């Protein structure tokens, strides 16, 4: 035994500050962005699915659906933008479960980093990927005949709302990943709520065409509220209280699942 050992043990650790927490957040975001860049196949995969849905509803099914006062392409494409960020968020569940399984989470949790930085960095990187996918989908939408009919300011607010919605759901998927802790199960567990939210909504057909029991759910669930607000922002329809309702939904979901995720992370271990 040596004095050196005793001396090294009596070092006073520095305390956490906001500056250090932000630095941890930067480090984790960077790590996850590097992972995204180095797995381009996952990025492509998150674009393929919404692309198929877009082409399906634009060219195969769209012809049979009439929306009063609106071209169907302008009706459905904003909803598919939303679907693209929903799908993108699923990767959060997958990659979080991977980090748990490989023991990366154990390593991070044993480091003196800010606890929230692990999840915040993960979700921020995933948000960047979702934004990239959204950009691609907007390009594709314009290519198949979708047009923004509102002033640019309203359109930007609409895009912002889609991104906020996507970010809120990234936290939902973070919870899924932390609960199931297994990459394969995470993918399956994440896809079901996604389909319910997207199809049992005003995304592809007006809610009024659905049976009564489904209407109540479809009309009031968050995806419908947000889609209606986004459509109004892009196409210049009546916005009424839709926008505030939509923002409230997104923030509510975000805060709720952020708190749950953080708690799950504190307890999670591989």
């Amino acid at each position: 035994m040596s004095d050196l050992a005793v001396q090294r043990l009596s070092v006073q650790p520095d305390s956490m500050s906001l500056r250090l927490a932000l630095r941890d957040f930067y480090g984790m975001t960077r790590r996850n962005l590097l992972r995204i860049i180095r797995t381009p196949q996952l990025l492509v995969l998150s674009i393929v699915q919404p692309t198929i849905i877009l082409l399906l509803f634009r060219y195969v099914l769209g012809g049979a659906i009439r929306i009063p006062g609106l071209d169907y392409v302008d009706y459905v494409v904003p909803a598919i933008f939303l679907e693209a960020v929903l799908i993108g968020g699923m990767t959060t569940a997958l990659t979080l479960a991977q980090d748990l399984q490989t023991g990366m989470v154990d390593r991070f949790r044993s480091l003196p980093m800010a606890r929230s930085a692990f999840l915040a960095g993960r979700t921020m990187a995933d948000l960047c990927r979702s934004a990239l996918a959204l950009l691609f989908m907007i390009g594709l939408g314009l290519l198949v005949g979708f047009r923004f009919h509102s002033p640019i300011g309203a359109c930007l607010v609409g895009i912002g709302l889609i991104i906020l919605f996507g970010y809120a759901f990234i936290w939902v998927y973070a919870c899924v990943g932390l609960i199931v802790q297994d990459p394969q199960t995470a993918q399956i567990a994440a896809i079901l709520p996604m389909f319910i939210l997207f199809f049992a909504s005003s995304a592809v057909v007006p809610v009024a065409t659905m049976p009564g029991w489904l209407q109540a759910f479809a009309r009031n669930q968050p995806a419908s509220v947000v889609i209606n607000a986004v459509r109004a922002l892009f196409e210049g329809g009546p916005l009424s209280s839709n926008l505030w309702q939509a923002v409230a939904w997104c923030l509510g979901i975000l805060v709720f699942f952020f708190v749950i995720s953080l708690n799950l992370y504190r307890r999670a271990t591989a």
Partner: protein
Amino acid sequence: MVIAASATRDVSHSDALNRDSQSESGFKAIEVQGVTKRFGPNLALDDVSLSVEPGSVLALLGPNGAGKTTLIKVLTTLVVPDAGVARVAGRDVQTDAKAIRSLIGLAGQYASVDDLLTGRENLELVGLLYHLDRAEYRRRTGDALERMTLTGAADRPVKTYSGGMRRRLDLAASLIGRAPVLLLDEPTTGLDPRTRNDLWSFIQELVDEGSTVLLTTQYMEEAEHLADTIVLLDTGRVVARGTADQLKDRIGADVLEVHVADSADLQRAATLLQPLREGDDVQIDPDLKQVSLRVTGRVDALLAAGRELEAGGVALDDLAIRRPSLDDVFLSFTGRPSSGSATATTDTPGSEARR
């Protein structure tokens, strides 16, 4: 019960220092008292107590499922114990977790490094998360890569690394923070003997620099090679502790091994040797055509065995006496061989070994 690990490490180059520090003993690098952890119906840790002196190495030895990893997780603040107290550098893992995290370095059994990042990116990230400034973590990353002979592969993604390289990187990651306490969970499991030897040297160097190490292992040889103190863990309980020599002494006997020429003679040889045995029963291993037993009085026992067997007409391939290995220690304390050891006494199902 807590025993103090008395280090036998050679520190002759700093004898004066050594005497000084021994007088101020009492401060433990790691202290565990009565720690219990239950996962559902499984009692992973059952009233475990141990302590590690500053600058020494403690090896937690035990088979899979003995609770080794759980104890590491308690000490790294990943798992909260149901009962008992665990302290690192005098700080409680439950109330002072944040401080402890900056005092420990963890290398995990599953080589937790990010395989999409390069070796350098992995280490720099860990350095940043230890809250080192940029210049400092870059310098330490360079040093750690060099030390682990990974400089050439530093800018390749980790997924291209071999198993040994991943382990070295994982160990390097645990060094970046210059943490005074290193917790190494089976650092060499699954490595080839050469890489294992390299890692042993690295760990030894770290201890020479004043690090305190707690490592888990399934290998007797590893515990014997690295550790000042060995704690034998079995199904969550501490079954024995001491230096390798102390543990061997506690068995208090040598092992006599008899290889018979013809398996048919095994039972007869065992019967003939029965009067010589000290302590446990005579063991028969049909695969090795071997009979083994604990004896006292080294040469006398050997000669007596030779006489008995010759008189009984048992043809021999080999007759030998050896000091007990840690395998024997494990067997004697837990009632079964150590599954993880390469040199474990084979006790295959269906054999006639009795105990």
